[in-house]
């Protein structure tokens, strides 16, 4: 026994030294390869999986239902993208990212694309080294305030305290708004929207500020929604959209034209239900090109020619997606700027030709 353990002890000394080295080497050996910044589409195909960065939870954009499935307009975009590139909307690894971590996760190569209700701004494009590909939701920053305050526009909020969440452009816009109008607005920054809303209901703040896309949903969660109102004016432009790493022109084009395809589909009346049928019956050359019947549009992107058809069949065109999450049966947010350009909105698609 004694001799045995003595040998063990001598061996252990050497093992300890070797073990540390082995741990480090082994850890790297077990690591998997992520795409180097560059040919992202090839890496996705080789991996057979799209790594899509999403929100950790915001109603309408990305939220889990009771069975744990992700739902929301950003999720539909991820699924359409996976269908276009891989032919299968289920081959996605969703990477939920917090506000503070989202861009670093994208920079580090852990995700291929960030579709996470993120505002496209100058700093994010330059200092952070990201490409901003498309806008999938036009929002603006608005205020939710108590009706009894007698406030009718944002400029009336001089001297008020406003609750909001940290890590987004929200706090910066308030600071800018206060500076530009000479108003003094105190902001109280919380990690989570639930806490910010609850603090407002408790009277800690005079109002809550967030993207207009979220405010309607937030109002419905209040104890007495009728006591509160969303101010009509917006203090900022919040074009929420899709970010990728800089330096991959081809991946940029794929994501950009996918967004265009989804919006064009709405413009030309192509829906989830009639897409297959229109492929044979349509006489519209735009529709035929979109669905891959004519031209080699998919090939030019390095994809199959029916890339857009596959994407549309997953969750429909842009309008269908919007209605599913923000329409009258869901969060009930008027389309406003998010309508097509020919219906008074901002979505003006580049022609597919």
């Amino acid at each position, binding site marked *: 026994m004694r001799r045995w353990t003595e040998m063990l002890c001598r061996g252990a000394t050497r093992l300890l*030294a070797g073990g540390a080295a082995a741990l480090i080497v082994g850890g790297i050996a077990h690591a998997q390869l992520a795409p180097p910044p560059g040919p992202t589409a090839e890496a996705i195909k080789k991996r057979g999986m799209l790594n899509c960065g999403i929100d950790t939870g915001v109603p309408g954009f990305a939220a889990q239902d009771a069975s744990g499935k992700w739902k929301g307009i950003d999720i539909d975009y991820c699924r359409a993208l996976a269908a276009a590139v891989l032919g299968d909307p289920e081959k996605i690894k969703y990477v939920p990212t917090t506000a*503070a971590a989202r861009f670093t996760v994208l*920079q580090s190569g852990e995700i291929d694309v960030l579709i996470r209700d993120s505002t496209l701004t100058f700093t994010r494009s330059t200092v952070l080294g990201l490409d901003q590909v498309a806008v999938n939701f036009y929002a603006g920053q608005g205020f939710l305030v108590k009706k009894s305050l007698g406030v009718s526009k944002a400029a009336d909020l001089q001297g008020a*305290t406003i609750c909001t969440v940290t890590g987004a452009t929200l706090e910066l816009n308030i600071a800018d708004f206060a500076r530009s109008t000479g108003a003094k607005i105190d902001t109280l920054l919380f990690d989570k929207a639930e806490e910010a809303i609850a603090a407002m209901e408790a009277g800690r703040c005079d109002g809550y500020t967030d993207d207009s896309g979220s405010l309607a949903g937030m109002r419905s969660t209040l104890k007495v929604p009728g006591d509160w109102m969303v101010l009509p004016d917006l203090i900022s432009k919040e074009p929420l959209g899709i970010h990728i790493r800089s330096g991959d022109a081809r991946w940029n084009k794929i994501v950009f034209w996918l967004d265009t395809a989804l919006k064009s589909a709405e413009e030309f009346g192509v829906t989830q239900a009639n897409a297959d049928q229109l492929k044979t019956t349509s006489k519209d050359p735009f529709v035929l090109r979109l669905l891959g019947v004519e031209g080699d549009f998919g090939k030019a992107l390095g994809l199959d020619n029916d890339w857009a058809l596959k994407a549309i069949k997953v969750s429909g065109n842009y309008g269908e997606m919007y209605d599913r999450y923000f329409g009258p049966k869901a969060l009930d947010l008027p389309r406003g700027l998010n309508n097509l350009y020919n219906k008074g909105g901002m979505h003006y698609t580049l022609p597919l030709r």
Partner: protein
Amino acid sequence: MRIRNKAWAWQATTAGAVVAVLLWFSHNLSANLAIRGMQVDFAFLWQRSGFDIPFRLVAWDNSYTYGYALVVSGVNTLFAAALCVVLASLLGLLLALMRLSGNPLAVGFSRTSIEVVRNTPQLTQIVFFYFAVLQVLPPMRQSLQWGSGIFLNVRGLYIPSPSGVLWDWIVAGTCIVVLLVAVLWRRFSWHELPRIVVLPPLLVAGVVIAGFTASWELPALKGFNFVGGIRIPPELLALVLGITIYTSVFIAEIIRAAIQGIHHGQSEAARSLGLSSGQSMFLVILPQALRILIPPLTSQYLNIIKSTTLGAAIAYPEILQIFARTVLNQSGRAVEVMTLVLGVFLAINLITSAIMNAWNRRLALQGR
């Protein structure tokens, strides 16, 4: 000789390996940043911040720099931590004494609260206390009022703020005098008096005298909020309450163990000298228990300092919220910001440990 050489070779290899790994990390970092067209650059610290900090103890407006935001939020962190250290120690002592008292309800309350508090996540408790505090405080238009200058409502406690050149000088002078007296205590002949009896009254007297010279600005309700005066926000109250209660149960257990670790003969001897039970506890038992409990107490104090980061969840503007959230978000400089935050916490904690260790050594020496 051979063995010693072998040992040194062993150590040199270990040190070399560590240095190599660190070099490897920094090499990777610079390579990765270069690929992305970024670089480590602390120049952003001198840029204008453009945001407001709702609660601060030193001057601040949105024209100050990012670097100064670290100072302002650091002071907020230290302020909350200091309050928690004092209050948690006192509450911990109270809980320990309750636990050792004979009253079954007090013992039961102490035991139940200790079990509940130490077995639920601290963040949940802090959020709970925040909303409990907000529920209890009255709405702003029905503020509790004392005199013409003190108001308490859901937005915080408002007190008059003093200002004036004479005020500044007298307060600063008093602080220096008190500090000097504390440091040079042993040089004075009246050191039979406990320090605690002399120093706080000295400080209070100085501040009161200064108060007569100051001009006071009273808080007043204007528009949405009270304007003027000093505001102590409910976030600070909730954070201090949450951390104090959480830490006090651990401190209570440490104090209880230390008190029980003092030999029984000590309290019996004290009693036979005619000391009351309170006197024997505070004059005989606790001073000796202090010696055993300083090392574990130091760990708890370090935990308090680290726990202040949970204030970010309830909108208390401390380092994590202001620097690691807002400044990181605005500047996009993740590596630089996180390195600074880690460095600041490491520095605060190492200094705290050093002070506590020094105190521990002095107590230990006195005992011999």
